[in-house]
Protein backbone atom coordinates (compact mmCIF):
# COMPACT_ATOMS: atom_id res chain seq x y z
CA UNK A 1 0.00 0.00 0.00
CA UNK A 2 3.01 2.27 0.40
CA UNK A 3 3.27 2.33 -3.39
CA UNK A 4 -0.16 4.04 -3.52
CA UNK A 5 1.29 6.74 -1.29
CA UNK A 6 4.16 7.27 -3.68
CA UNK A 7 1.90 7.16 -6.75
CA UNK A 8 -0.41 9.88 -5.45
CA UNK A 9 2.63 12.11 -5.20
CA UNK A 10 3.36 11.71 -8.92
CA UNK A 11 2.21 14.17 -11.55
CA UNK A 12 1.01 11.51 -13.96
CA UNK A 13 -1.56 10.25 -11.44
CA UNK A 14 -3.13 13.69 -10.97
CA UNK A 15 -3.07 14.39 -14.70
CA UNK A 16 -4.95 11.08 -15.08
CA UNK A 17 -7.51 12.26 -12.52
CA UNK A 18 -7.88 15.53 -14.49
CA UNK A 19 -8.52 13.43 -17.61
CA UNK A 20 -11.32 11.61 -15.78
CA UNK A 21 -12.88 14.94 -14.77
CA UNK A 22 -12.49 16.44 -18.26
CA UNK A 23 -13.92 13.43 -20.09
CA UNK A 24 -16.75 13.02 -17.56
CA UNK A 25 -17.72 16.66 -18.26
CA UNK A 26 -17.42 15.97 -21.97
CA UNK A 27 -19.73 12.93 -21.75
CA UNK A 28 -22.24 14.79 -19.58
CA UNK A 29 -22.48 17.92 -21.74
CA UNK A 30 -22.57 15.80 -24.90
CA UNK A 31 -25.46 13.83 -23.47
CA UNK A 32 -27.40 17.02 -22.68
CA UNK A 33 -26.63 18.45 -26.14
CA UNK A 34 -27.50 15.20 -27.91
CA UNK A 35 -31.06 15.33 -26.57
CA UNK A 36 -31.65 17.67 -29.52
CA UNK A 37 -28.63 17.33 -31.83
CA UNK A 38 -27.98 14.01 -33.68
CA UNK A 39 -24.56 12.34 -33.47
CA UNK A 40 -22.91 13.56 -36.70
CA UNK A 41 -23.69 17.30 -36.40
CA UNK A 42 -22.77 16.91 -32.73
CA UNK A 43 -19.37 15.40 -33.63
CA UNK A 44 -18.80 18.23 -36.10
CA UNK A 45 -19.61 20.86 -33.48
CA UNK A 46 -17.61 19.32 -30.65
CA UNK A 47 -14.56 19.27 -32.93
CA UNK A 48 -15.07 23.01 -33.31
CA UNK A 49 -15.07 23.22 -29.53
CA UNK A 50 -11.59 21.67 -29.47
CA UNK A 51 -10.10 24.39 -31.67
CA UNK A 52 -9.78 27.21 -29.08
CA UNK A 53 -7.41 25.22 -26.84
CA UNK A 54 -5.34 24.12 -29.86
CA UNK A 55 -5.18 27.73 -31.04
CA UNK A 56 -4.03 29.00 -27.63
CA UNK A 57 -1.44 26.22 -27.25
CA UNK A 58 -0.11 26.70 -30.78
CA UNK A 59 1.53 29.91 -29.56
CA UNK A 60 2.97 28.35 -26.40
CA UNK A 61 6.76 28.18 -26.23
CA UNK A 62 6.87 24.43 -25.56
CA UNK A 63 4.81 23.77 -28.72
CA UNK A 64 6.94 25.94 -31.00
CA UNK A 65 10.07 24.39 -29.54
CA UNK A 66 8.75 20.83 -29.81
CA UNK A 67 9.15 19.89 -33.48
CA UNK A 68 10.31 16.30 -33.58
CA UNK A 69 8.93 15.04 -36.92
CA UNK A 70 8.29 11.52 -35.68
CA UNK A 71 6.50 12.88 -32.60
CA UNK A 72 4.34 15.16 -34.75
CA UNK A 73 3.51 12.24 -37.08
CA UNK A 74 2.44 10.09 -34.13
CA UNK A 75 0.29 12.96 -32.83
CA UNK A 76 -1.33 13.55 -36.21
CA UNK A 77 -2.02 9.81 -36.52
CA UNK A 78 -3.45 9.93 -33.02
CA UNK A 79 -6.06 12.49 -34.13
CA UNK A 80 -6.78 10.78 -37.45
CA UNK A 81 -7.17 7.31 -35.90
CA UNK A 82 -9.40 8.70 -33.15
CA UNK A 83 -11.60 10.23 -35.86
CA UNK A 84 -11.63 7.00 -37.88
CA UNK A 85 -12.56 5.08 -34.72
CA UNK A 86 -15.52 7.41 -34.13
CA UNK A 87 -16.62 7.11 -37.77
CA UNK A 88 -16.41 3.29 -37.51
CA UNK A 89 -18.46 3.42 -34.33
CA UNK A 90 -21.16 5.50 -36.04
CA UNK A 91 -21.02 3.17 -39.07
CA UNK A 92 -21.46 0.13 -36.78
CA UNK A 93 -24.61 1.67 -35.31
CA UNK A 94 -25.89 2.61 -38.77
CA UNK A 95 -25.21 -0.90 -40.11
CA UNK A 96 -27.68 -2.29 -37.59
CA UNK A 97 -25.36 -3.27 -34.76
CA UNK A 98 -27.00 -3.85 -31.40
CA UNK A 99 -26.27 -0.72 -29.36
CA UNK A 100 -25.25 -2.63 -26.22
CA UNK A 101 -23.00 -5.08 -28.06
CA UNK A 102 -21.26 -2.30 -30.01
CA UNK A 103 -20.83 -0.15 -26.89
CA UNK A 104 -19.53 -3.01 -24.72
CA UNK A 105 -17.13 -4.28 -27.39
CA UNK A 106 -15.60 -0.90 -28.12
CA UNK A 107 -15.36 -0.19 -24.38
CA UNK A 108 -12.74 -2.95 -24.21
CA UNK A 109 -10.16 -0.69 -25.89
CA UNK A 110 -7.88 -0.44 -22.79
CA UNK A 111 -7.17 -4.16 -23.26
CA UNK A 112 -5.93 -3.46 -26.81
CA UNK A 113 -3.71 -0.64 -25.53
CA UNK A 114 -2.45 -2.91 -22.74
CA UNK A 115 -1.57 -5.68 -25.20
CA UNK A 116 0.20 -3.24 -27.54
CA UNK A 117 2.06 -1.55 -24.68
CA UNK A 118 3.31 -4.91 -23.37
CA UNK A 119 4.29 -6.13 -26.84
CA UNK A 120 5.80 -2.97 -28.31
CA UNK A 121 6.81 -0.80 -25.34
CA UNK A 122 7.72 -3.74 -23.07
CA UNK A 123 5.71 -2.26 -20.21
CA UNK A 124 5.02 -4.51 -17.24
CA UNK A 125 2.22 -4.47 -14.70
CA UNK A 126 2.32 -5.80 -11.16
CA UNK A 127 -0.25 -8.44 -10.14
CA UNK A 128 -2.30 -5.78 -8.33
CA UNK A 129 -2.23 -3.48 -11.36
CA UNK A 130 -3.34 -6.38 -13.59
CA UNK A 131 -6.27 -6.93 -11.22
CA UNK A 132 -6.94 -3.18 -11.48
CA UNK A 133 -6.95 -3.44 -15.28
CA UNK A 134 -9.51 -6.27 -15.08
CA UNK A 135 -11.72 -4.30 -12.67
CA UNK A 136 -11.44 -1.14 -14.80
CA UNK A 137 -12.49 -3.14 -17.85
CA UNK A 138 -15.39 -4.69 -15.90
CA UNK A 139 -16.57 -1.25 -14.77
CA UNK A 140 -16.35 0.16 -18.31
CA UNK A 141 -18.38 -2.77 -19.63
CA UNK A 142 -21.01 -2.24 -16.91
CA UNK A 143 -21.26 1.49 -17.67
CA UNK A 144 -21.66 0.86 -21.39
CA UNK A 145 -24.57 -1.60 -20.91
Amino acid at each position, binding site marked *: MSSIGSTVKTRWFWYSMLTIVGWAGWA*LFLKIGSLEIPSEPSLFMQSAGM*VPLAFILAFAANVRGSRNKKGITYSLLNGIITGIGILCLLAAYRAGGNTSVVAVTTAL*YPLVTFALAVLLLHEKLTKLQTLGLILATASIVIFSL
Partner: protein
Amino acid sequence: MFLPTWLIFTFLALCCFGIVGLLQKLSTDLVSAESALVWLIVGFLLLEPFVYPGQSLSHYSMRSIAFVLLAGVLNSLGSWAILAAMKNGGKASVVVPLTAVYPMVVCLIAPFVLQERLSPMQGVGIACALAAIVLLAC
Protein backbone atom coordinates in the same frame (compact mmCIF):
# COMPACT_ATOMS: atom_id res chain seq x y z
CA MET B 1 -16.86 -17.26 -42.39
CA PHE B 2 -19.38 -14.44 -42.74
CA LEU B 3 -18.93 -11.44 -40.50
CA PRO B 4 -21.75 -8.88 -40.41
CA THR B 5 -20.75 -5.36 -41.48
CA TRP B 6 -21.58 -3.84 -38.09
CA LEU B 7 -19.25 -6.30 -36.36
CA ILE B 8 -16.37 -5.41 -38.69
CA PHE B 9 -16.91 -1.71 -37.97
CA THR B 10 -17.14 -2.43 -34.23
CA PHE B 11 -13.79 -4.25 -34.21
CA LEU B 12 -12.23 -1.51 -36.34
CA ALA B 13 -13.41 1.07 -33.78
CA LEU B 14 -12.05 -1.10 -30.93
CA CYS B 15 -8.65 -1.37 -32.63
CA CYS B 16 -8.54 2.36 -33.42
CA PHE B 17 -9.26 3.38 -29.81
CA GLY B 18 -6.73 0.84 -28.54
CA ILE B 19 -3.99 2.01 -30.93
CA VAL B 20 -4.62 5.63 -29.91
CA GLY B 21 -3.43 4.83 -26.37
CA LEU B 22 -0.15 3.55 -27.74
CA LEU B 23 0.29 6.56 -30.03
CA GLN B 24 -0.30 8.90 -27.09
CA LYS B 25 2.68 7.36 -25.32
CA LEU B 26 4.87 7.26 -28.44
CA SER B 27 4.15 10.90 -29.29
CA THR B 28 4.76 12.27 -25.79
CA ASP B 29 8.10 10.45 -25.66
CA LEU B 30 9.19 12.79 -28.47
CA VAL B 31 7.21 16.04 -28.17
CA SER B 32 5.55 18.03 -25.38
CA ALA B 33 2.00 17.14 -24.30
CA GLU B 34 0.83 20.53 -25.61
CA SER B 35 2.42 19.96 -29.02
CA ALA B 36 0.96 16.44 -29.16
CA LEU B 37 -2.50 17.86 -28.43
CA VAL B 38 -2.25 20.57 -31.11
CA TRP B 39 -1.29 18.02 -33.78
CA LEU B 40 -3.88 15.54 -32.49
CA ILE B 41 -6.58 18.20 -33.02
CA VAL B 42 -5.17 19.01 -36.48
CA GLY B 43 -5.38 15.29 -37.35
CA PHE B 44 -8.91 15.10 -35.96
CA LEU B 45 -9.99 18.18 -37.94
CA LEU B 46 -8.76 16.57 -41.18
CA LEU B 47 -11.76 14.24 -40.88
CA GLU B 48 -14.26 17.08 -40.43
CA PRO B 49 -15.42 16.95 -44.09
CA PHE B 50 -16.59 13.36 -43.47
CA VAL B 51 -18.83 14.38 -40.59
CA TYR B 52 -19.99 17.70 -42.05
CA PRO B 53 -23.77 17.43 -41.64
CA GLY B 54 -24.40 19.24 -44.96
CA GLN B 55 -27.22 21.23 -43.47
CA SER B 56 -27.51 24.42 -41.52
CA LEU B 57 -26.82 24.00 -37.82
CA SER B 58 -28.80 27.14 -37.04
CA HIS B 59 -32.09 25.30 -36.43
CA TYR B 60 -30.71 23.78 -33.25
CA SER B 61 -31.19 25.73 -30.04
CA MET B 62 -28.31 27.88 -28.81
CA ARG B 63 -28.46 26.00 -25.52
CA SER B 64 -27.79 22.61 -27.15
CA ILE B 65 -25.06 24.06 -29.39
CA ALA B 66 -23.39 25.63 -26.34
CA PHE B 67 -23.43 22.29 -24.50
CA VAL B 68 -21.88 20.44 -27.44
CA LEU B 69 -19.20 23.14 -27.91
CA LEU B 70 -18.44 22.99 -24.20
CA ALA B 71 -18.19 19.20 -24.51
CA GLY B 72 -15.51 19.76 -27.16
CA VAL B 73 -13.58 22.11 -24.86
CA LEU B 74 -13.68 19.54 -22.03
CA ASN B 75 -12.70 16.75 -24.43
CA SER B 76 -9.59 18.69 -25.43
CA LEU B 77 -8.80 19.40 -21.76
CA GLY B 78 -9.08 15.68 -20.95
CA SER B 79 -6.97 14.79 -23.98
CA TRP B 80 -4.28 17.28 -22.95
CA ALA B 81 -4.28 15.85 -19.41
CA ILE B 82 -3.86 12.22 -20.57
CA LEU B 83 -0.97 13.29 -22.82
CA ALA B 84 0.57 15.19 -19.87
CA ALA B 85 0.13 12.07 -17.69
CA MET B 86 2.12 10.01 -20.19
CA LYS B 87 4.69 12.76 -20.65
CA ASN B 88 5.22 12.76 -16.88
CA GLY B 89 6.06 9.07 -16.68
CA GLY B 90 2.67 7.35 -16.72
CA LYS B 91 2.67 3.97 -18.46
CA ALA B 92 0.21 3.59 -21.36
CA SER B 93 -0.90 0.25 -19.89
CA VAL B 94 -1.84 1.97 -16.60
CA VAL B 95 -2.99 5.45 -17.66
CA VAL B 96 -5.37 4.26 -20.41
CA PRO B 97 -7.44 1.87 -18.21
CA LEU B 98 -7.23 4.32 -15.29
CA THR B 99 -8.70 7.20 -17.29
CA ALA B 100 -11.22 4.93 -19.04
CA VAL B 101 -13.26 4.76 -15.82
CA TYR B 102 -14.48 8.35 -16.37
CA PRO B 103 -18.14 7.19 -16.82
CA MET B 104 -18.04 6.57 -13.06
CA VAL B 105 -18.09 10.35 -12.50
CA VAL B 106 -20.97 10.72 -14.98
CA CYS B 107 -22.97 8.07 -13.07
CA LEU B 108 -22.33 9.92 -9.81
CA ILE B 109 -23.33 13.33 -11.21
CA ALA B 110 -26.23 12.24 -13.48
CA PRO B 111 -28.80 11.83 -10.64
CA PHE B 112 -28.29 15.50 -9.71
CA VAL B 113 -27.95 17.03 -13.18
CA LEU B 114 -30.11 14.78 -15.37
CA GLN B 115 -32.47 13.50 -12.67
CA GLU B 116 -31.50 9.94 -13.63
CA ARG B 117 -31.56 7.12 -11.10
CA LEU B 118 -28.44 5.17 -10.25
CA SER B 119 -29.16 1.49 -10.96
CA PRO B 120 -27.73 -1.27 -8.70
CA MET B 121 -25.62 -2.42 -11.68
CA GLN B 122 -24.12 1.07 -12.03
CA GLY B 123 -23.39 0.94 -8.30
CA VAL B 124 -21.36 -2.22 -8.92
CA GLY B 125 -19.62 -0.44 -11.80
CA ILE B 126 -18.68 2.48 -9.54
CA ALA B 127 -17.30 0.07 -6.91
CA CYS B 128 -15.23 -1.72 -9.59
CA ALA B 129 -13.96 1.62 -10.95
CA LEU B 130 -12.91 2.88 -7.50
CA ALA B 131 -11.13 -0.40 -6.75
CA ALA B 132 -9.46 -0.24 -10.16
CA ILE B 133 -8.15 3.28 -9.49
CA VAL B 134 -6.62 2.14 -6.17
CA LEU B 135 -5.09 -1.04 -7.67
CA LEU B 136 -3.73 0.67 -10.78
CA ALA B 137 -2.08 3.25 -8.51
CA CYS B 138 -0.23 0.46 -6.65
